[in-house]
């Protein structure tokens, strides 16, 4: 596209940039302030950086746990879950959008309306189900406090959003391409794997990035399904710090903790945003 923007368009663009950036910049420098400093001059720069906020957030302070031990758990759980979600989600969506059969539309709606079901109502039955499903060797004490259980739940509960996003992209894929490939002798799996999946890449990247962010920050399910501290994910650790604000106010460490949780998600986004953009512009979609 060759279109030049009028100078006026930069006014809202820059305004938006400011609105987006300022709170994040503020979050960053506020994490280096002491709590009285935050309350006395919430918008002022720190007088001297309080690096100990980060130490407290990471290691904990006065006998209370910090975020450090949960970091690796979160990385593993998020990574494995998102890979599985994309595989399972793409397969299901492709099946529902490209092979029309009786009820395919209904199943699609069933998937997407799952987004509207309040998770915390399912929490108790879900806990009981996982707790009582016991498999010797793999999960002798049930799937609560179990990484496999949590990943399975994350995959299942991310499907509504993933199917929702991918259905838009898969619907936009020309069916003719697939049919052409079939005429050339490609099997169903080859069409899906070699033709459609690469074409749906922008959608997969969109779904992937948002699922990474969503699962990285997921709290209510982890809260109900994990009670062993060794299994905790970062949001549970963060919640301990936020909850503690009610008994022992330390906003500096809270902001530092928020930033510690934010940064990896941010890094993933920055790493993928180039691909995300390339994904959006590349491929047959452009016509």
């Amino acid at each position, binding site marked *: 596209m060759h279109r030049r923007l009028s100078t006026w368009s930069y006014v809202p663009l820059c305004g938006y940039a400011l609105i987006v950036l300022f709170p994040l910049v503020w979050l960053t420098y506020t994490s280096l302030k002491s*709590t009285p400093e935050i309350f*006395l001059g919430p918008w002022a720069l720190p007088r001297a950086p309080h690096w100990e906020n980060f130490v407290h957030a990471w290691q904990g302070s006065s006998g209370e746990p910090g975020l450090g031990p949960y970091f690796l758990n979160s990385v593993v759980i998020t990574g494995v879950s998102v890979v599985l979600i994309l595989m399972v989600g793409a397969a299901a969506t492709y099946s529902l959008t490209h092979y029309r059969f009786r009820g395919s539309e209904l199943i699609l709606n069933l998937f997407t309306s799952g987004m509207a079901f309040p998770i915390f109502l399912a*929490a108790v039955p879900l*806990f*009981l189900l996982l*707790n009582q499903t016991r498999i010797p060797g793999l999960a002798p004490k049930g799937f609560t406090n179990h990484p496999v259980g949590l990943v399975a739940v994350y995959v299942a509960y991310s499907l509504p959003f993933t199917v929702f996003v991918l259905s838009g992209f898969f619907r936009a894929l020309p069916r003719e391409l697939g049919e052409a490939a079939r005429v050339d002798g490609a099997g169903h799996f080859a069409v899906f794997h070699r033709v459609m999946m690469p074409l749906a890449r922008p959608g997969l990247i969109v779904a992937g990035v948002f699922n990474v962010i969503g699962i990285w920050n997921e709290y209510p399910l982890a809260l109900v399904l994990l009670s062993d501290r060794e299994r905790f994910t970062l949001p549970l650790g963060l919640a301990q710090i936020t909850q503690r604000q*009610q*008994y022992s106010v330390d906003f500096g460490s809270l902001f530092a903790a928020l930033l510690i949780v934010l940064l990896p998600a941010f890094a993933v986004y920055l790493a993928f945003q180039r691909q995300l953009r390339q994904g959006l512009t590349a491929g047959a979609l452009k016509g």
Partner: protein
Amino acid sequence: MPLHDFSAQRRRVLKALGGFACLSASGCVHPIAEESDPRGQPRSGDLEVRLFLGGYGIDFYESAAREYEQAHPGVKIDIKGDPRIWDQLRPRFVSGEPPGLAFPGWGMDHYALIYERQALPLDDALLTTPYGKTRCTWRETFLPEVMKMGEYEGQTYLLPHYLTLNGWWCNVNLFREKGWKPPQSWNEFKALAAQIKSAGIAPLTHQGKYPYYAFQGFLLPWAISIGGIEAYRKAEALEPGAWKAAPFLESARMIDEIRKAGWFQNGANGMSHTEAQMEFLQGKAAMIPCGTWLESEMKKQLPAGFKMEFFLPPRVDGGKGDPSIVQVGVEPWLVPSLGKNPALAIDFFKYITSEAKARQFVREKGTLTAIRSGNEGDLPDTLQAPARALREAKATWSTRYAQWYKPFEDASGKAMAELLQGSVTPEKFVEKLEAEASRVREDPNIPKHKVQ
């Protein structure tokens, strides 16, 4: 989902408790049972303890568990805490696999657990002797008023550990510098508030985002001061007309008067407890209503040299209420009736509530305790005044009704927010309270509590 066989469970527990089971059942009053000497009653087995991880941490309980394990070889106590422990406990209660001993925290509806028979009645255990004493029962070591909070239909299910007092706080240095004194009465308060305001400081701030602070700090203390504790007991019992009776209306008018005079800090209606308390610590507001946890909650934020002092909410001149009355609060413990090893759970909690451990808790954590003799001896500065108030109190009260009747708490909080914003008159406000009270009264699905 299966119905659990409660009675068999209960029998098992009573058996485990030894010979004391008959006492209350047969009606014989025998205050002193056998000494709970560990040698006489060997304890063994595993105990799972799940605790609310709040401001006082769980380290105290962890080290108590290690001591207990040393004294009782064969006992293994597993202690874990979480700031939202109630969310984790709920499915365990439903599945019939609760921990052996629980401190479920403020997010748990303790009374609903009692209605569901998930808590073990502890009356028999309370007749046994406590650790370190021989001449009294375990029950007698607690403050009697506080024990009433754990009762339902004549049995005791919930046990207290630490104790909080609710009142007002003033900024000591500011008051000293200006020559002000904490107001003892409403008239003194009005005179002082005018002075403070003209000095360019907000006389009073409050945690407006959570309106129950205004119930505990303003409405109820004044209603009790005006109408006496009887007026409040009637309201707690949801007697028709009690919530709109003269003492409550008068008290609501006082709140309205403060609002109209501009004595509340600007914007306090939208402040969380943290925000309001920071304003107080920064000297922007001279007084704040809060419980005795205030200093511990804000300890990392105290400006150098800052001192605060507790005092009872100003009484109303000419009122019927006893001026020494204090408002107390506890966060209870319970022994789940389906938990494993209830006898061990009870004995471990008895150990925690022994005089020596109670004193240690007070010293280490800077809070008062519900164990009578625990509040004697060395106390931190900020606890001196509350401890004195507690000693001198001829009576105590608590906001039990808010725990009993949750729908009322919610609706009355919203009404309070309107009163504080000035969008309803005091008359309309008490009408709303009364309407909500009668809604609860007439709802057959809400179990009612007798008020003694």
